[in-house]
């Protein structure tokens, strides 16, 4: 049996489509209801597929703890988790990007010397990624960790800018913010438990190849 972890939420539909396009057994995924463990059926070789549906941020844990063999998950999540994962494929689906956004007048500080950014107050739920990104530019920031609605923080004076995922930019615009600097591209990635790769490659190979051919 091959166990696949999939993120619930807005990228779930894209994941189902990716699996179906690759011809992998995905019974029951179109309408999982409240089930979190789905028996997807068997492939042509008789291998059974089981799907675990989890919150996106929990997917790396399911993989690194060896509960699931493979997973589709956003690169924003894998980057933030720091879990030991093997990244096998970029599906190029669910594309968006991580960006620094803030009031338009902040843009001039980003255009100048990095010293102008020292001590910048950044609101984000991606604190590890934000810190890493700014440190790569030689800038130390102050993080304000928020679980959501980070766009509020600059307007309330809690932060100078935000570090978040941007899809259309609609929420930013509605809150008087604009993208100041793109930090990283984000898309759904196929990841695996490194141990499963070493021990069960023969089992995983056909699924990985099918997904590779169809992305």
């Amino acid at each position, binding site marked *: 049996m091959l166990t696949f972890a999939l993120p619930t939420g807005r990228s779930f539909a894209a994941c189902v489509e990716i699996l179906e396009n690759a011809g992998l057994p995905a019974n029951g995924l179109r309408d999982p209801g409240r089930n979190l463990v789905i028996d997807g059926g068997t492939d042509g070789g008789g291998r059974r597929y089981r799907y675990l549906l989890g919150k996106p941020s929990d997917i*790396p844990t399911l993989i690194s703890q060896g509960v699931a063999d493979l997973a589709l998950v956003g690169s924003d999540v894998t980057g933030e988790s720091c879990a030991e994962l*093997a*990244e096998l494929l*970029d599906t190029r689906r669910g594309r968006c990007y991580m960006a620094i956004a803030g009031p338009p007048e902040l843009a001039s500080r980003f255009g100048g010397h990095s010293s102008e950014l020292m001590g910048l107050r950044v609101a984000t739920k991606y604190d590890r990624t934000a810190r890493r990104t700014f440190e790569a530019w030689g800038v130390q920031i102050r993080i304000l960790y928020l679980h959501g609605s980070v766009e509020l923080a600059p307007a309330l004076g809690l932060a100078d800018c935000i570090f978040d995922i941007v899809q259309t930019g609609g929420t930013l615009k509605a809150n008087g913010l604009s993208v100041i600097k793109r930090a990283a591209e984000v898309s759904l990635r196929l990841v695996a438990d490194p141990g499963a790769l*070493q021990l069960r490659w023969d089992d995983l190979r056909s699924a990985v190849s099918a997904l590779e051919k169809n992305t």
Partner: protein
Amino acid sequence: MNLIPRGCSGIGGELASCMEDFRNRTLRLFASYGYNPFNPAEFQLLEGTAASLALRHRQRLIVLNSPFGEPCCLRADITLSAVSYLSQHFSPEDFPLRLCYAERVFAAPRPPKENLEETQVGVELLGWEGAGADVEVVALLLRALDRLGLDKSVVVLGDASIVPRLFAGVDRMSGGLSRLLVDQLQEGAYYDYRRTVDAAADLSEGDRGILRELPALKGSADVLAEAADLFGRFGSPEAARLLHPLGELARSLDRLGYGGRIRVDLGFIRDLGYYSGPVFNAYASPSGGLLGGGGRYDRILSDIGLSCQAVGFGLRLRDLALACKPKGCATDALIWSGALAADCAMRCAESLSCRGVSVELSWKLEENDSRALAHRRGCRWWVNLKDGYAEELATGVRVSPEEITSAGGADGC
């Protein structure tokens, strides 16, 4: 007051007994192959340790200043301590040096793990020439796992030197391409690795073909033949020689009867940053459970001016014990002296202990309290010295204390 620092754990009960048992059994096994105990310092100098480790491990060092003002870290890696010990205390005429240890190492955890420390048991074989050392160490690893009852365990072999040596010539042109590829393989970034290979302008089509397919060569030792085919197909028959050390190692292990428990992974490069030849991971079973691993690290020796081989491995003692599902560790007998003098109980305990029966003394005043304690402890026997009998708690059978035997067959006096 009753809390311990986050990331630390105090281990007791069956798990601790099992770990102690495994520690003793593995060290005895290693000693029987000529490995001498090694007690490394708990602190390591930060400069040398950081210089030898890959960046992602350097960032996990637990750094502190010694009271003498030296920048140090808590011991993060026993191999580095072993190399330091070798260089400080032995001349090349004294080589090889065989060391074994069961010691703690400390590092900041990678989420979702939280542990700051773990106990490793392992060996280091330093300063020996020839492929025999690799075979010796991997066979000893498998033998140790057998000795602990993990006879379904699996060892995955790789070679950290294949990619760098394949592209030693290319490197001069492409400015560290092989270093980048090695880093990407170490981090499991297979997708980025493939992108790097595809984008590298200096690579010939043959090299590109080999590099693209190398990480997908995983499975039984047969993949070595597939790799040789791959090298031949892309016009690098001489490069196939790079597979020889791994092939020899796999064949030797097969002849030793371990063929069914060996896997090969040509995309496997252990990620500490100092391995420079065959590397290996040990799993508790074919379905997983990483126990530890090791490999060849000649480069650390060459960094301190010694041109010889070194190879070793470390296994996490706690994971070993958990993989074996610890069995009960109850003492055989609880001895109750009643109102008798304490020296009577001590003499009885000594007599039983000398016959291999594990005992615990009960100083409770009430007979029933003592008997209840024996039940709670899971003891087989409850000894009533006052009335001069031993009772088997499960059956109620009474015998004289001299007739008690040990279930575990422990060592006598």
